[in-house]
């Protein structure tokens, strides 16, 4: 709609350019306005005209997202054992603070976030860059992407076969004489959480490779050539030319990694069920166990709320850190265009 510029405005712009006194023209922020042709008709163009079309979406979001959310908030103030429900105020939240399982679960969740940010994101970037201009690079990328096509449940079953005490990993280690490296990978904390992060890396890297590869392809060739003329190559080329131009993709990849790691569930559920002795639970698993296995609905709701707050807060903080700069960049670009 921004292309439709009314003659009046054009005239104003014109006069601004030519008048002796430089008049500052505020750049119009693009907004959507109903088309002029539709405006004449009062029946259709009212501010509520769009409502019927938006209603189904509102209904779905309301029923499936907003209501359950507020219901969970409400439930978290009650103690509900399936028979009786009594108001307990903030007791459930106070209990969280004393619960060693919740503490461990929070720590595991943090490990997942850090692990997922370090491994699949970094590995994805490295593999994408390494295979970018390589011969058969496409095939290499395809092979790395393949695990992404397997369901998380199947991946977990596969890794179970590798990680049990008599599993493939330990057999290989013993086979090459590294007996002391053989571990009970899934039985003890923290290596059970770490092993599962590695397993999920195997699966999650593929998508990151694809995203980074797309980002690499989108880098304008002339910037690279200009840098080459200036004598940049290798690490300097990557650090000062490639990486800054991958920024948009990186924002997406990192954002997805944060959210995915916070909601890690299926692989852990199948590999260890959060055990042994609840040592590998993340917040999502603790919430599930309390609410649906132990029927501590109120306590489970409290955990769910804490998890939601963490997810929303971390996403918001991250995006806020990224967005103002993006806005500033846009402003800067606008300024250059004007000049």
């Amino acid at each position, binding site marked *: 709609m921004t292309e439709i510029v009314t003659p009046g405005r054009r005239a104003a712009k014109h006069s601004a350019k030519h008048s002796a006194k430089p008049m500052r023209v505020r750049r119009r922020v693009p907004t959507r306005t109903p088309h002029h042709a539709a405006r004449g008709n009062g029946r259709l163009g009212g501010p509520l005209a769009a409502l019927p079309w938006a209603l189904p979406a509102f209904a779905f979001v309301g029923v499936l997202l907003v209501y359950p959310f507020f219901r969970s908030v409400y439930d978290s103030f009650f103690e509900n*054992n*399936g*028979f*009786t429900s009594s108001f307990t105020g903030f007791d459930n939240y106070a209990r969280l603070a004393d619960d060693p399982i919740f503490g461990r679960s929070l720590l595991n969740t943090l490990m997942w976030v850090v692990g997922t940010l370090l491994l699949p994101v970094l590995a994805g970037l490295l593999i994408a860059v390494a295979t970018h201009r390589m011969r058969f690079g496409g095939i290499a990328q395809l092979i790395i992407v393949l695990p992404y096509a397997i369901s998380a449940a199947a991946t977990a079953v596969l890794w179970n076969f590798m990680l*049990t*005490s*008599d599993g493939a990993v330990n057999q290989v280690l013993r086979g090459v004489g590294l007996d002391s490296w053989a571990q*009970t990978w*899934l*039985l*003890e904390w923290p290596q059970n959480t770490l092993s599962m992060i590695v397993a999920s890396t195997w699966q999650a890297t593929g998508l990151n490779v694809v995203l980074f590869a797309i980002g690499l392809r989108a880098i304008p060739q002339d910037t690279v050539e200009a840098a080459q003329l200036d004598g940049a190559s290798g690490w300097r080329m990557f650090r000062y030319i490639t990486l800054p131009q991958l920024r948009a993709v990186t924002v997406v990849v990192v954002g997805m990694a944060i959210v995915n790691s916070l909601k890690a569930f299926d692989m852990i559920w199948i590999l260890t*069920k959060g*055990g*042994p*002795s*609840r040592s590998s639970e993340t917040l999502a698993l603790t919430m599930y166990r309390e609410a*649906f*296995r*132990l*029927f*501590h609905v109120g306590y489970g709701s409290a955990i769910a709320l804490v998890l939601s707050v963490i997810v929303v807060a971390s996403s918001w903080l991250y995006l806020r850190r990224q967005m103002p700069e993006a806005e500033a960049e846009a402003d800067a670009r606008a300024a250059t265009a004007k000049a």
Partner: protein
Amino acid sequence: MSGSRHRLHPASDAPLDRRTLLAATAAGALATACGTASGQPPGKVAVLGDSAAWEKPMAAAGAAMKSVAGLRLVPEVNPSLESFEQVVKSSLRTSKTPDMLKYWSGYRLQDLARTGGIVDLTRQWDRAVGKGWVDASLRDAFTYRGRVYALPMNLAYWVFFYNIEVFEEHRLQVPETWDDFLATCERLKKSGITPLHGSAADRWPAFIWFQEILSRQDPQFYEDLMNGRERYTDPRAERALRTLESFFDEDWFTSMDMSHADAAPALVHGKVGMVPCGTWLGSTLVGAGGKPGKNLGAFVLPMADPKARPCVIFESSALVSTVKGPDREEALKAAGHWLRPAVMKAFSHSLQDGCPNPEVEPANPVIGGLAKKVRGDKLRLLNRFWEQGPPELVEATVDDLAGFLLNPSSYREVLRTMQDRADEAWQVWREAEET
């Protein structure tokens, strides 16, 4: 339906079709939503269960019941344990609940009975006992406040599976006494075979060893502890875990992440000496190449306390009839015929497990032999750890026991934690009982 319009008004078919499609979609969605609510047609009763392996046996029992009572049982399966429990608990108070359910016995059944959502089947039970169709000693496992709320479906004993050929090769006999058992473990260990399967994989198996050792050292204490009359911090509970710790010191156990699915082939191939489990593991063992009577045998763990009355742990699923199910009358009639020998035979032979009706011989000779021994020696039947005590307590204590299995020297701390949980859970349970 829109066919005739189609021919008459070809121009208007697009909007009409879209409308038809929308209506059909809405109708379809509605039908799916109500699908579980509608009852079975007359002559058919739906039985909801959580195990796909029980589908065929249930259909076989249904066919047998059709011929003796004119009613067909239709199995419905929700194979996810979590969602099965959710469906049962949330639908019980509504008319959308299934007619009949496969549930657990013991406290899990009591948990369900006190909602008032399941039918008192005492009359059907008494009639079956009168005809000799059911082992009367099982009554307690299906009772709430003196009334019977479910009928037993299978009867699995908790035994030690062993490989007959491996035992013969190392000149070992089935242990008759506790010392025999220890000697067997020692001999197997010396021969390079891991004597015992222990597991914390899949979570629940963590209770197996505590249950087996404690019940052999002091069956009465086991029963009292499980019913909240004794404490986990008692020296007798400590003794059981210390015994287990000594087994760990001897290095008799497999790695604790070996699941039952992996233990079965390991036993058949002679890598693991003995696997404690319910007799229902038999079908998994046969699937792994075991041949009952040839290379696959089972025995009941001998008593560590020779003065105590010998006991065996049993496990029996519960057939429950719901109050609000749509075909309640037919479901009650089906319950009346459930324990009939013809129905029970069809069911248990298809399931390949033990049968609560003593008139029915198990199809599997190993289980048949065990049943004979249990009845002949008048072994005391004790319900399984999983069904004993408030369910949420059991859900938590299996995790504590898993912690013990991974760090056996922590037994004191583990028992203290378990007792703290027990104090809280029993209080909640008793309060709920009063309301």
